[in-house]
């Protein structure tokens, strides 16, 4: 579904992603962990098509197509979804109207009829239950004045509405209280299926207790330096990133 080969990207002179290699197959859940500033959000942004970053090398194939050639909206319409680490507040744009527009854009792209008001409301009611989001929140302006947790919940709600093939969650667990974390994780688990996949960026093993990943990757200085199963997350939790750093340095020295 997603095939990233030697992806390099950066901003101006600075290279942030320095050769990412990653394959995700339908039905899989991958977690990416790594210290602050290692490039996790950059990877998510590059995949979603943020133009601030310049791709300087490598390739990304998504559902058999060259992802890097597509506009952000076409990526979304093809089934890629990014839950933002910092969702943007947009005053004056009603959350419900916006989601309706987005859902219908995706449907149009797939050659489906737009949902009428009744069908849309029905779908919305159903998915609202999934993430236990309140109607009053959705009648407000998009993310405006939402608490940190409400914003994250709104991201997952949008994901549930759009039914993406690949959902990238960038630290959706940060800033959530225990109950919200469980609700968000539950939302993700209900959306899990054999045809769709997840890439979950997180700092905490806690989320992975609720959403069991198939693979865990450690991103460090723009490269995936270790991949493993969920036990890797446990090991990290225990030892911190130092053991990775030490290992890498030793390896570097051995090479020289």
């Amino acid at each position, binding site marked *: 579904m997603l095939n990233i080969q030697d992806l390099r990207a950066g901003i101006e002179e600075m290279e942030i992603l320095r050769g990412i290699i990653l394959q995700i197959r339908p039905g899989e859940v991958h977690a990416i962990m790594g210290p602050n500033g290692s490039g996790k959000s950059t990877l998510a942004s590059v995949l979603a098509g943020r133009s601030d970053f310049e791709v300087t090398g490598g390739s990304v194939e998504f559902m058999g197509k060259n992802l890097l050639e597509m506009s952000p909206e076409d990526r979304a319409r093809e089934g890629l979804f990014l839950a933002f680490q910092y969702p943007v507040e947009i005053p*004056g744009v009603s959350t419900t109207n916006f989601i309706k527009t987005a859902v219908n854009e995706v449907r149009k792209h797939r050659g489906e009829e737009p949902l009428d008001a009744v069908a849309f409301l029905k779908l919305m009611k159903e998915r609202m239950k999934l993430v236990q989001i309140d109607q009053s929140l959705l009648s407000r302006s998009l993310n405006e004045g939402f608490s940190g947790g409400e914003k994250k919940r709104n991201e997952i709600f949008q994901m549930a509405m759009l039914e993406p093939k690949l959902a990238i969650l960038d630290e959706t667990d940060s800033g959530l209280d225990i109950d919200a974390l469980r609700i968000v994780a539950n939302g993700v688990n209900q959306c899990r299926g054999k045809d769709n996949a997840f890439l979950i960026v997180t700092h905490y093993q806690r989320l992975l207790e609720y959403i069991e990943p198939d693979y865990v990757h450690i991103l460090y200085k723009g490269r995936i330096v270790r991949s493993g199963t969920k036990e890797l997350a446990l090991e990290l939790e225990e030892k911190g990133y130092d053991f990775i750093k030490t290992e890498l340095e030793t390896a570097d020295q051995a090479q020289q």
Partner: protein
Amino acid sequence: MSQTIIDKITEQQSNLPGREGFLAEFTDRSMAEFRRLGIPAVKHEEWRYTRVSGLFRLEMGFGTGTSVTAADIDAHRLPDHEEATELVFIDGRFAPALSNIRHNEKELVVMPLSDAATGEHADKIRAHLGHSAAYHPDGIQALNAAFAGIGLFVMVRKGFATEKPIYIYCIADSRTGYVFAQPRTLFLVEAATQVMVAEHYVTLGSGESFTNEVFELCAEQDAVVEYVKIQDEGPMASHVGTTHVRQTGRCLTNAVTISLSGRMVRNNLNMVMEVEHGESHMHGLSLLNGETLVDNHTIVDNMQPHCQSNELYKAVLDEASTGVFNGKIFVRKDAQKTNAYQSNKNILIGEKASANTKPQLEIFADDVKCSHGCTVGRLDEEAMFYLRARGLGEASARALLLHAFAADILDRIGHEPLRRYVDRLVSQRLAYDIHNGQ
């Protein structure tokens, strides 16, 4: 300006109605002022951006006021007009035959200024006509005043509240040549009334036109006045308009100015707060493209204590358009406890678009709260990316954000059908611009 043009204007003026009594005296005095002051030149600080002198050319005609039929107006009627009083100006002349007065005489007085000036309302006209001149002592205002003989008098009678709006259509007919129109209205709102008045400026044909209008409104004790000006003239239209509002009793006035098109548009809005505890709201939206210039000049004159005014002007500037905002707030010595807020926000879309903004606060009282602010920016890139990352195309994401930007102003139109009407104009325009941009 050449002598021939002045002679042409003078001749036209001397043949207008209202050649007796106070009105004759007023218009002749104004004509003399016009000849003395001339047309404001670019070096005139108040007219730096709005270059009107080039509009005075020999081929300008005054129209006959008879070229337009009711059917011509139909495309420009405002919502639920069948229920409203509709007052029509053609080429600056009040046209009773095309107007529909749907309020009764106990509620509303409507008559040509020239009749009102000699009849039972003569005193009122003496008291109010020309009050705006002190705020804009320039030749162009004087020129409009000189033509007051073809103007309109409206009075909303005491104690009368209505849901039915009063619509004023100012139509310039450019189909047979360059037309110069000078509508003038004196609009009195007596005590304890509630009224909604909207002015709609449009052009027939796509030829050149120049509208120089003055709308003077006076609101008495406990009046609630909603005023909406919709400027949606042709691409070759120039427009200088002054809306002058006096609060002569404690009351509430709400003014919304919408500018959508034309070549060069100047909107003056004066808010004269003569009585304690007055409240006024002034909102404006300019949605511009091409090489359109819209220049909003506002004045709030706080004369007495405890008045509140709130001002927000927004502009979306596409292509090579220019937005100008100049906001004056005067707080006189006695006007303690004044609250006056002013804000101007601009979004530049076009590479060649520009925004010029200048607050001017002159405060002579010491216990006041006044603030002003201005922003000039591009469309929020973060917001654009967020919307696009959810599948919205660039064009619809942009339209959604711009519409949201405009919504603050549209929401200020209290009359729901009119709000929806303007909203539709705005939405169409945003879609059109975007269509152009693709």
